[in-house]
């Protein structure tokens, strides 16, 4: 009797413990936002929100300092757009090939390759971008420097590819087999089935894949910092050096004095990044749930 009692207490305690554990992720997400706000909101003692978001100059150490992050936002946008214009067509085509066309053996190899590409540390990709890609771009366009938005876009394109491919492929695989069979039964070829039936039914999942690819591209730090040239000016084109939001934080935080305006301004950039990626993720998550055939959670 007594053993049963202690057993029950033990069971109850374990259950509580596991529940608390399950809540940590929500707690951590909140904590991240809280600490970004705690350190970042002080920046608005030194600059107004409008001057911060729309200011044209980022001179954090001049006197008085100027904290306009518009050049950085535009830099991030330019590099991300460039990257996506490469990785979206390639990524979706690869996803379709893996999910619908490739024979089982090839599929396993390609999926492993996608995983390996995602696993390469961004610093190593940045190193290759710096030593291989940048010199060739400099030569190809006869530029003063190979560290440009274009270099960053190409580098980023390959880093966003695994996200796009794996999530789009999940969405395509989740399309019920009955859809395809019905299409074959009507006499359609495999390709007709793919582009008239399978891909349209997986649209929401594919859109989610693109959104997460955007999130990945905006958040990427080290590789982009190494190959884009780090010029915090309003970008004029793909062949000019630019600087992104992420690179600014990574490059400058080491030099700031704790609790200086510069330090708080970098945290404020962190808030901007967190909010952008948070919205993208929430959007993607809600789209994925609407996908037909997805495990409804």
């Amino acid at each position: 009797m007594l053993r049963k009692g202690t057993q029950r207490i033990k069971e109850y305690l374990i259950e509580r413990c596991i529940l608390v554990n399950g809540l940590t992720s929500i707690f951590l997400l909140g904590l991240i936002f809280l600490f970004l706000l705690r350190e970042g909101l002080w920046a608005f003692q030194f600059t107004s929100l409008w001057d911060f978001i729309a200011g044209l100059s980022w001179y954090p150490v001049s006197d008085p300092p100027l904290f306009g992050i518009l050049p950085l936002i535009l830099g991030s946008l330019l590099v991300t757009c460039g990257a996506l214009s490469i990785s979206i067509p390639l990524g979706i085509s690869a996803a379709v090939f893996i999910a619908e066309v490739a024979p089982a053996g090839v599929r396993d190899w390609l999926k492993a390759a996608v995983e390996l590409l995602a696993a390469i540390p961004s610093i190593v990709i940045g190193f290759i971008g710096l030593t291989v890609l940048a010199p060739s771009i400099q030569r190809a366009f006869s530029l003063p420097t190979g560290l440009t938005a274009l270099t960053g876009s190409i580098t980023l394109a390959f880093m966003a590819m695994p996200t796009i491919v794996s999530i789009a492929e999940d969405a395509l695989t989740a399309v019920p087999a009955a859809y395809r069979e019905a299409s074959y039964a009507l006499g359609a070829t495999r390709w007709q089935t793919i582009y008239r039936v399978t891909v349209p039914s997986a649209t929401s999942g594919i859109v989610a894949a693109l959104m997460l690819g955007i999130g990945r591209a905006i958040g990427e730090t080290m590789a982009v910092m190494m190959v884009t040239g780090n010029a915090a000016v309003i970008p004029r084109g793909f062949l000019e050096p630019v600087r992104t939001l992420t690179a600014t934080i990574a490059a400058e935080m080491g030099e700031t004095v704790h609790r200086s305006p510069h330090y708080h301004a970098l945290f404020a950039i962190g808030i901007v990044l967190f909010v952008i990626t948070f919205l993208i993720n929430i959007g993607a998550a809600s789209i994925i749930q609407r996908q037909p055939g997805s495990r409804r959670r």
Partner: protein
Amino acid sequence: MSEIAKRREFCHPIGASGEVLNEICEAGSSGFRLSPRVTEKIAFFLLSLASLTILLPILVVVGVVVVKGLPALTWEFLTQAPRMGMKEGGIFPALVGTIYLVMGTIVIALPLGVMTAIYLTEYSWQGRLNRWIRLAIFNLGGVPSVVYGLFGLGLFVIFLRMGASLLAGSLTLAIMILPLIVTASEEALTAVPQSFREASLALGATRWQTTWRIVLPNALPGILTGAILGISRAAGETAPILFTVAAFYLPRLPRSIFDQAMALPYHLYVISTQIPGISLDKKAGTALVLLGLVLTMNLAAIMIRYRFRRRKRW
């Protein structure tokens, strides 16, 4: 498209006749158009080309790093501290620092992640809280790595007064890989058949006994895969450790978890962008060691998963 051509398209069953000309193109009254079969071939060819672009960057990165880095890879390179402003010597402290760092990370992240997965699969199958937790994990997975670095700086280094230390770095990396561990463990746990649980519960075992003795052992290979992937991710990341642990140059090994440490990815960053005049083979050698570590772990994880899936007893 003319009515006849349309009908023809439907009357040609896939791969039926040998009328090659007819198959290749039908120059009907509406002009030149490809037969569905040829269109399919072209489309599939283009799709396969697109998939090859996944292999291209892997081959370039691995190829360049191996070719340029292999000459630098000597026993001294792996076992000596950098000397002469990092122009000479090896990467020993950075290698050890990274090993310490990932050990700390996995010790923190694995129990937390597995317990979260157990909560999600064994203790609450659906409901609002479950959905919120999943959404939070999904979101944690999308937070940029440099934002984790800021968070680690704000909370661990400054607010909790840990300073830049192995502990602060491990905690930051642990939070970063938490979503990965949770997702992998969850997948492993859901793959255990429901009948196993029912059999155990029918024998009078409690829910925890069932989870601990039946479900977890059967999910172990999947959880292990997740842990290896988590370690590899933590070993390769730079941005989260920039402000939380990484030392620019520290030729001795860290003495406690409150010490700063060098780390391989940050060391590679430093010698390839911060200090001019470092020979290419030193940089490529460092990149090779890092890449070798990370890719070996990933290949191991992929293989464990593959073998486990084939050998499944149910």
